[in-house]
């Protein structure tokens, strides 16, 4: 998908961008924020911001990277204002085939994981998710968060160190 197509037929080109990236954006929001009920609103906000930002897109990165950049900004803004998720918020995420006890345990495990992640600063959280969960390279992460690859590498490393300390503290 090229943005040149967007200038020729803006509406249908933007719709094509949406169709291509909506799933990815939603998945990234889920990994960053957990099963937050506002994900759909955040999805809309991401593409509305993307629409406004497209005229400034210079083609210096892929459209996916550009979309991820905006997604992470939207997610970070949301992280700063929302309440932490409770275990009950994860009920829909858990396989219906589990026993009630397993269901509760799984909800709590997911809530713990997302809760620990939430204790990282937004930029370290984003770096951790993009690297460890989405599998992106440090170069790609750097482009998304507009930092050097080395800085992205350091953020991932720091996120892992902090999470290791938090989990050790919890397990004691």
């Amino acid at each position, binding site marked *: 998908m090229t943005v040149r197509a967007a200038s020729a037929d803006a*509406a*249908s080109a*933007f*719709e094509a961008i*949406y*169709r291509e990236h*909506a*799933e990815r954006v*939603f*998945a*990234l*929001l*889920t*990994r960053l924020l*957990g*099963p937050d009920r506002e994900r*759909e609103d955040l*999805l*809309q906000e991401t*593409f*509305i911001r993307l*629409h406004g930002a497209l005229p400034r897109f210079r083609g210096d990165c892929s459209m996916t990277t550009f979309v991820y950049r905006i997604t992470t900004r939207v997610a970070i803004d949301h992280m700063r204002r929302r309440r932490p998720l409770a275990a009950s918020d994860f009920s*829909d*995420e858990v396989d219906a085939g589990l026993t009630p006890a397993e269901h509760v345990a799984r909800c709590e*495990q*997911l809530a*713990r*994981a*997302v809760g*620990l*992640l939430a204790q990282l600063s937004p930029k370290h959280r984003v770096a951790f*998710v993009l690297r*460890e*969960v989405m599998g992106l390279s440090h170069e790609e992460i750097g482009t998304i968060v507009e930092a050097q690859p080395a800085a992205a590498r350091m953020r991932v490393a720091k996120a*892992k160190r902090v*999470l*290791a300390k938090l*989990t050790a503290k*919890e*397990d004691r």
Partner: protein
Amino acid sequence: MRVGDIRDALASLDGRLDDVRRHHAWSRIEHAIAEPPPARSSARGWWLAVATAAVAACVLWLVVRAASTPRDGATTVPMIATPGHPATIERAGLTLVLHGPGIAMVRERDAALSVVVIGGTLVAERHSGSRALAIEAGGNATLTRDARVAVHVEPGLVVLGAGERSKVIVERFASDAVGAATVAPPAAVSPPPDAAAPPPTTTAASPPPRRIRPPARSNELAPAVAADADEADADEADAHAVVDARALYHDAEVALSAHDRAAARRLLEQLLRDFPRDKLVDAARFDLALIANADGDHARAGALLDELIAGAADPNVRDAAKRLRAASAAH
């Protein structure tokens, strides 16, 4: 819990976006990028415009009055209303209430009233013995003998209604008359989509309106003299129809947002049943097809899409239905 466990837990979260949610998100995005409402700044701008016009009107009136006496004996009175503080005038057997923000100029001559509505929502009630009321708004003029008339004027929109329609106008636009829960914001209104456009490719907005237009024809004052009884009944039925079809579609959207496809399906089917000629039927039919697909009922989805392909008003809707039909046929 180890760092790897955190990673695995995050990776296991369901980040899938089903067709219905994808479509509805796109509807809202399309609507927002088509006409982004600068809410705060437009309200501020509107206030500034009203305040400036009010001051100018008052100054002009004072100057003209001081400079000359009307040769024809007419008197002119300005009405200026702010939100929560309507202006009221009783003259010549008529009670005029202006809900703000708004300005109107009321002229009385020989026991006959004429009013120019510059902005706001004016409600006029006739009492026995009063003469016809001349209303001018948005460059159009009309003469009315209806017992109750309402006219709303804002940038880009003029609506007028008599009888039951006047109540709808007041409910929609006059926040201080009804209360916040029933009020539509004064800015940013548009009618239900002229071509219902559920699929992403269409350019007409499909979601239920943040913008609304009451039953009266837009930018056109309804012919007012001695409203015909049948026409009044039809208008009342029309007002009822527009509000309910729109409300059903809106409630269906709310249900879908809460992932309650069953409730959404019921509401959309009711819309098709009760308002078969409403402009939202194509959107409702398309949404029902998406819901049927999500529920695994591909036969039902196909039947709905075939109806759209055969008869949707908007060619973009027909194209989208064909594409979705092709995708459904794969199952």
